[in-house]
């Protein structure tokens, strides 16, 4: 019995040490993001808000990546999660979250649950997140992980994100994390007037720009694209 108690104690100590390491790494990652946030790109010179930073600090990214990638969980880079998909780079996740200007009462649609990381970040900030995933294995894994981590304001489903989730719409914001050859017209329809949709443009591992789609109160659609921070394509005078 004594041996068993010691073993349990050891396991618990190792686990809490592990958790502590992750907490420190997460804080370091957030600190890095905070530094970058000071130089954020964009016509409106947006900054990553403290609320988004707090969400980034709250979500356990290491719980949402494959075991083999856990040691890199708090590096500011995308990681493979299997099935040809990635968990987005934390910086991109923070930026996308910031761009939709989340509010505590918001109902947000996510297209492409993937690892569940973006949904978890959103869940820290908004009223409810509806998330759709088309890859069955990922949908199952993300659902289980998000339940395990105690997120009650996320509803996931397996299915085609192209048509959105009309019964829960219209949405205050839509975050598309899946690759999109074109912006699905049904998603624009399900966006509330004044709502915002954000889509990463580029390949896996290499987000090129973020596409922000704003639907004005009159229903007009305006889009903006945000590129890398501080990158100006011309040298010298410009």
């Amino acid at each position: 019995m004594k041996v068993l108690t010691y073993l349990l104690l050891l396991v618990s100590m190792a686990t809490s040490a592990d958790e502590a390491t992750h907490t420190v790494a997460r804080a370091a990652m957030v600190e890095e993001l905070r530094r970058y946030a000071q130089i954020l790109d964009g016509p409106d010179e947006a900054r990553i808000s403290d609320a988004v930073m707090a969400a980034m600090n709250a979500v356990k990214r290491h719980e949402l990546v494959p075991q083999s990638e856990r040691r890199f969980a708090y590096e500011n880079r995308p990681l493979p999660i299997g099935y040809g998909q990635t968990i987005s780079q934390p910086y991109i996740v923070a930026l996308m979250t910031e761009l939709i200007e989340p509010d505590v009462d918001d109902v947000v649609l996510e297209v492409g649950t993937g690892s569940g990381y973006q949904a978890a970040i959103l869940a820290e900030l908004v009223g409810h997140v509806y998330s759709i995933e088309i890859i069955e294995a990922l949908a199952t894994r993300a659902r289980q992980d998000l339940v395990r981590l105690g997120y009650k304001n996320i509803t996931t489903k397996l299915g085609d994100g192209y048509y959105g989730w009309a019964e829960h719409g219209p949405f205050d914001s839509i975050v598309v994390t899946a690759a999109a050859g074109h912006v699905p017209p049904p998603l624009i329809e399900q966006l509330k007037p004044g709502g915002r949709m954000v889509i990463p443009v580029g390949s896996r591992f290499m987000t090129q720009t973020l596409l922000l789609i704003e639907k004005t109160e009159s229903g007009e659609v305006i889009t903006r694209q945000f590129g890398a921070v501080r990158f100006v394509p011309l040298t010298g005078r410009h």
Partner: protein
Amino acid sequence: MRRLLLATLLVSAGAIGYELLLMRMLSIVQWHHFAYMIISIALLGYGASGTFIALFKSRLESGFEAAFATSALLFSITMVSSFALGQRVPFNALEVVWDSRQFLNLSLIYLVFFVPFFFAASCIGLAFTCRRRGISRIYFFDLFGAGLGAILLIGALFAFIPQDALLVLMTLPLIASVIMSTQSSARAPLITVQFLWVALLASGILQNQLGLRVSEYKGLSQALQVIGSRILDVSSSPLGQITVVESPTVPIRHAPGLSFNTLHIPPEQLAVFTDADDMSAITRFDGDLNSVGYLGDVTAALPYALLNKPDVLVLGAGGGSDVLLALYHGANSIDAVELNPQMTKLVEETHAEFAGFVYEDPRITVHTREARGFVAQSGTRYDLIHIGLLDSFAASGAGVYAQSESYIYTKEAIREYLEHTTDGGLLAITRWLKLPPRDSLKLVATAIDALRTMGVSKPGQQLVVIRSWNTITVLIKNGALMADEIQSVRQFARSRSFDTAWFPGIQASDANRFNLLREPYLYDGTKALLGPRAGEFAERYKFYIQPATDNRPYYFHFFKWATLPEVIALRRVGGAGLIEWGYLILIATLLQAAIAGLVLVLLPLSRVKRVWPAGTGPRMGAYFLLLGLAFLFIEMAFIQKFILFLSHPLYSVAVVLSGFLVFAGLGSAWSERLAGKLEGNDRSPVAIAVGGIALFAIVYVILLPLIFQRCIGFSDPVKIAISVVLIAPLAISMGMPFPLGLRCVAATAPNFIPWAWGINGFASVISAVLATLLAIEFGFVVVILTALVLYAIAALIFVSSTRPGSPNPLRQ
């Protein structure tokens, strides 16, 4: 001797076939960037085996047959096992900017594929070393086998899928091993292993390991992850592997550049992948044009807003989307050109019903031809020549094609297209939009340059550029745009919320209105490129946007060294998409080729006794090093240049590689005779050979573009024959300097021979990659001229060393 000759032929055929097959298979599982690495790997195998034989010559000589049979058997075994193993190396090209371990994986791939070539080369090297009397015949069968192997492989790729072609190919060295083992002292163990190998193959266990493990980040893999998606059919040829996927649960909706304002949703589509990527779509069509109404709301529809019932030429018909686009807009006639007959067959036969029997429409004529060749040969002039999107955004955006030649988007190509438009006709090109702009500005710069070479003084009057959030469509008119046409452009763009980036008379306020960028990059860029300081602008731009030309057809190459530190630093703040990783992989390949060459070829040679006249080693070394570099420079430049003529990289590699091998071999054989004739004469045979190389190379630099232009429309067999005839005299000359040098060394410093082979092999290994890099940076002409300079220096070394009184062992 007969047995040995046959075995040599079989091994040599297997080696060249395997080289080509690897290029094909790795293009499917990964991307095109492995092609030139494979040539380097094969050369490394040959270099390292030369060193190996030099070190263990006496032991190998005593058991020659057994050594040959063992090497051939190991070649057969490793052909299969290296591929199975190589596929399991977790190399992810897309991750190189994040994970330095990927470079290690790349090196692992390099080493895994080196092994079979090492064994193949050992067979040939052993035959040369141990049967010196029959060397000329062995050499002939070696080269004849190489040519045969290339033909065999191309034929096999028409008949089999690549994995099965590999199984066919591996039987060649296996038979060679059986042939040689009958005379061998180790017959019993050899036959046992051969039998076990055959039994293993017959069991089918290996076949299961050979299934192509396509990168999970390629379009096909991603499509197959979607619930309910499935492969409908796969067809394979040397031109590519075509896979058709249906996805009934989550329909495929391929509509690049679709307007936000559209009221139409694309109908059901079948995805068609070439080499597991580069998706195009076959759209369900029931004959009702309203069902494809979305085609009116894509940027590629712009030219139809300016034309009424045009005669259209679609270059790169793919799955037929652009043909449908033309039909939707009421084209009067449509010539659809598609290189790959399998692709045409899909729309014409296999999925004809799904596609609404669209190719049976009397207005449509389908031509299975290469685009440039078709245009060059065509006597027809079109109201519209349309080039749509045939590569994937992901691949294009990630710099996958950085080192891929594309002769579709060069200055010469655009000029040719425009010359085949009617007066007032249009050339329309749609591309993915990368931000900040790269290929879009390069396309604009190329179009402007093409118009200027046609004598157009104000190219801006003939140009229109519009963009959506992810595509750009460029219109180039054969003549100045009229006011009503400009009005149509503005109306088309405004009603679909597309941004205009250029039309004659555009104001800054017309650009950047719907899809807002921080700066109106495309407008600013186009304006600058049309202005008097275009050169300065291109120079200051952080991406390489100088026009693509037939001499430097790297349309997808935007890399500038000066920008690298900045984009690497920015990768953590959203700048990863600015990095062109295909180019970085090429650099990494060059480094690993140099290291592998040093470690596997040169370093072991330090064990060979160095006995030769003091101070002469560097001279001899320089001679063979220069030859290795120069030979491959010319060969690689020709491979890349002949892609334009032979339509496909694999055809070009097969024809040029085997052509150079065979004719250089003939040159090598004749060099002996030339040296004999010139004995006692003042003229140096090397100088004569280098003179020949310079003459043919310079003539080709000048004449090849003209020859290609005249003959590009001929059938494939005729073009192959022309290529062989063109290659022959140059390759014969290039085959001479090496054996001439070796002959002199053999007479005076025989200990240097392994070094001569090794240094030459090492130079070839790096040269295969270096030539591609130089071609990207400076163009083919510079690569060829550099090779000539290297040959000239080598000749000078030879001539000065063979002068009477010279202490150098190059003197006999």
